[in-house]
């Protein structure tokens, strides 16, 4: 599709390529940068590094669980693996990746030259980076000077009273607390920055109702970051007070409550899921229209559904706690609110299908990942509705059914969305196309691996296998299923290897992309690939939701119909 593009004159003066510079100077440039594009790339790469580390931890767990009565790793190591896997994937893989994508694309898509607060942006990234380093330092520093290191082993939600000084000796839990506290400050800074950028930095003519869907979803995500990270920060401070100052917040012997930690954690924890999945929805809403050659179906409804998801997601947290035993009124409320959030999510699925319906679909790699993500969102949503019903949850809460459900969301939608985004925007970031052949190998391997692992993971859950167990007896009927689940991991890892190879190879050998390789419609494709430091020499004037369509088709512009 690359040849169909020079209809639009580039809106910018192409900057001159600089000659090679000493490596120290290049590194220095990256470390002191406040440019949203570089910070976006750094966020993304940091997230991918964490994704690989978290993936290795998951692989160790799957190897341990592949057969019954296995003793590949010690029970202590197993506890550390699931704690570090969860913490790493949520806070240091998924969040930096969605922040990176938001950082890179938000100013480009709304016709701005940078984020609202570039230096705060850099601060936010380095705080996130520092948080991850502190968390991983626990491997060497967990017991302080008293012996070998130890990673946190209290689960990624660190339920009280397991985190109290009596049960969690040494400093492993403190590394977890302080790492998340610091990265939380970085997240709040980034949320604040995205929100302010969207509200104050839009280019001429870019009204709120003309913003690309990804920008809409990112701004709701930023709102959720502002509202939801606070409770986590507060809970972490309380935990620190308990552990270091002898406080009694979660100390049941002094009248404190362990359940209130669960409430505080999940008041953060459930909006967090939407912080991660909304940007993925945004990616799907950008990729699907372009490869269906149709504008997004029901833009206004999509925006309304996004905002509805944002608000409802703040009132569903205790569906993580049905098994704890709440009053019947509380159960009824959280069942109802959780079922209600399925409505706007369902609207989105119908709108993506509506966008594809009757379109001229081309199955490029980003489109393949997007279509798979839509299908997987449907299944993840259906198991979500099942678990939203309190009696069903009493049976299957804390089982592998729950694990399969939320990995369907996190892997099946968020990671698939991130892969779609990587293929779709790679040409913009590097100026070169990624290989379609390698991309399709990646897609099919990852799709097969994902389904082998997580489709079959539902079954041991239904058969009663609880989560967070180190090993299990043979003759429970779980062993065959667990072996299949573990085999799927190999395909996923192979797929990711293809992707990493593709990213590296295409950077040097990929086909030159040009400004607009996909014949797309949003503003970022009007500038050069990669964009110059200042993004736009003259700020583009926007008259519709598809500004580039208007430029390419002056005889039939969108603004006549909107």
């Amino acid at each position, binding site marked *: 599709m690359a040849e169909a593009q020079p209809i639009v004159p580039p809106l910018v003066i192409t900057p001159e390529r600089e000659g090679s510079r000493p490596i120290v100077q290049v590194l220095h440039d990256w470390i002191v940068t406040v440019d949203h594009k570089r910070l976006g790339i750094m966020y993304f790469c940091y997230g991918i590094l964490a994704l690989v580390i978290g993936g290795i931890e998951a692989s160790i767990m799957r190897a341990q669980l592949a057969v019954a009565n296995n003793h590949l790793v010690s029970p202590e190591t197993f506890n550390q693996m699931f704690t570090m896997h969860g913490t790493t994937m949520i806070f240091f893989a998924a969040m930096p990746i969605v922040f990176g994508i938001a950082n890179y694309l938000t100013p480009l898509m709304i016709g701005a030259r940078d984020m609202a607060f570039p230096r705060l942006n850099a601060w936010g990234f380095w705080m996130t980076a520092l948080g991850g380093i502190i968390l991983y330092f626990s491997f060497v520093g967990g017991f302080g000077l008293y012996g070998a290191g130890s990673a946190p082993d209290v689960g990624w939600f660190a339920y009280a009273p397991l985190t109290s000084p009596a049960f969690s000796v040494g400093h492993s839990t403190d590394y977890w607390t302080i790492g998340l506290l610091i990265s939380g400050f970085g997240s709040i800074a980034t949320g604040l920055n995205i929100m302010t950028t969207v509200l104050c930095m839009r280019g001429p003519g870019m009204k709120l109702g003309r913003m690309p869907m990804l920008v809409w979803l990112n701004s709701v995500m930023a709102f959720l970051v502002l509202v939801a990270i606070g409770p986590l920060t507060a809970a972490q401070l309380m935990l620190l007070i308990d552990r270091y100052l002898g406080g009694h*917040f979660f100390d049941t012997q002094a009248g*404190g409550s362990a359940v209130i930690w669960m409430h505080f954690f999940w008041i953060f924890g459930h909006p967090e899921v939407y912080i991660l999945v909304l940007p993925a929805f945004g990616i799907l809403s950008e990729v699907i229209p372009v490869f269906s050659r149709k504008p997004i179906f029901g833009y206004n409804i999509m925006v309304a559904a996004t905002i509805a998801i944002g608000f409802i997601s703040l009132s569903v947290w205790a569906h993580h706690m049905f098994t704890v035993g709440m009053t019947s009124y509380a159960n009824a409320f959280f069942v109802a609110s959780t079922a209600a959030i399925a409505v706007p999510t369902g609207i989105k699925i119908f709108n993506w299908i509506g966008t594809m319906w009757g379109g001229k679909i081309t199955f490029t790699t980003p489109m393949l990942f997007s279509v798979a993500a839509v299908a997987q969102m449907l299944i993840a949503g259906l198991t979500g509705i099942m678990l939203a019903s309190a009696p069903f949850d009493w049976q299957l809460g804390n089982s592998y059914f729950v694990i399969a459900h939320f990995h369907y969301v996190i892997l099946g939608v968020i990671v698939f969305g991130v892969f779609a985004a990587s293929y779709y925007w790679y040409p913009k970031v590097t100026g070169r196309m990624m290989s379609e052949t390698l991309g399709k190998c990646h897609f099919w391997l990852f799709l097969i691996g994902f389904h082998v692992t997580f489709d079959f993971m539902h079954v041991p859950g239904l058969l009663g296998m609880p989560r967070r167990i180190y090993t299990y007896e043979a003759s429970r009927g779980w062993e065959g299923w667990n072996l299949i689940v573990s085999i799927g991991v190999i395909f996923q890892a192979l797929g990711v290897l293809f992707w990493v190879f593709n990213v590296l190879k295409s950077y040097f050998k990929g086909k030159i992309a040009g400004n607009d390789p996909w014949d797309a419609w949003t503003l970022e494709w009007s500038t050069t690939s990669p964009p110059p430091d200042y993004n736009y020499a003259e700020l583009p004037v926007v008259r519709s939701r598809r500004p580039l369509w208007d430029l390419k088709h002056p005889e039939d512009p969108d603004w006549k119909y909107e």
Partner: protein
Amino acid sequence: MRGKVGMWCLIVAESSIFCIFVVAYLYYAGKSVSGPTPAQVLHVPIFASICLFSSSLTIVLSEKAIHRGNIKQFGIFWFLTLALGVIFLVETGIEWHRLIYNEGLTISTNLFGTTYYSLVGLHAFHVTVGAIGLTIILLFTLFGAVKMEHAGRIGVFAMYWHFVDAIWVVVLSVVYFIAR
């Protein structure tokens, strides 16, 4: 404009942190298994509260002054704001000293102590941050670096100070009246 929106976002995020501490305070009110109880030891800090609330007025007056370009008047009201904030902190310190040494209430004594010191302390921490900011800007004013064109930025900082005062309305009523 950017600064104002950014500060609003920060206020939303900070409010959610305070919200959780307030919820914890209310939830644990009366659940301590040992004394002392709030009714036995707490005295409403009337003077400190009047000082803190007045500082919102003086900071508004200093904003008005810088909008008119009257830097001297701005400096005077700014100094008053800082002084009132510092008085509040000193009063809090005296109150805590009395609670710790006379009443024997520390953060680890009972649930009341834990929730009281963390909620009031979180607020006092925010007043301290505000006082440091006020001091820095006061020093800039004394050295003649603050000019009329900085009125917008002064306004953004004033939003933070108003937020700290507004939070005190909540903390004061929760700690000293509702959950007494």
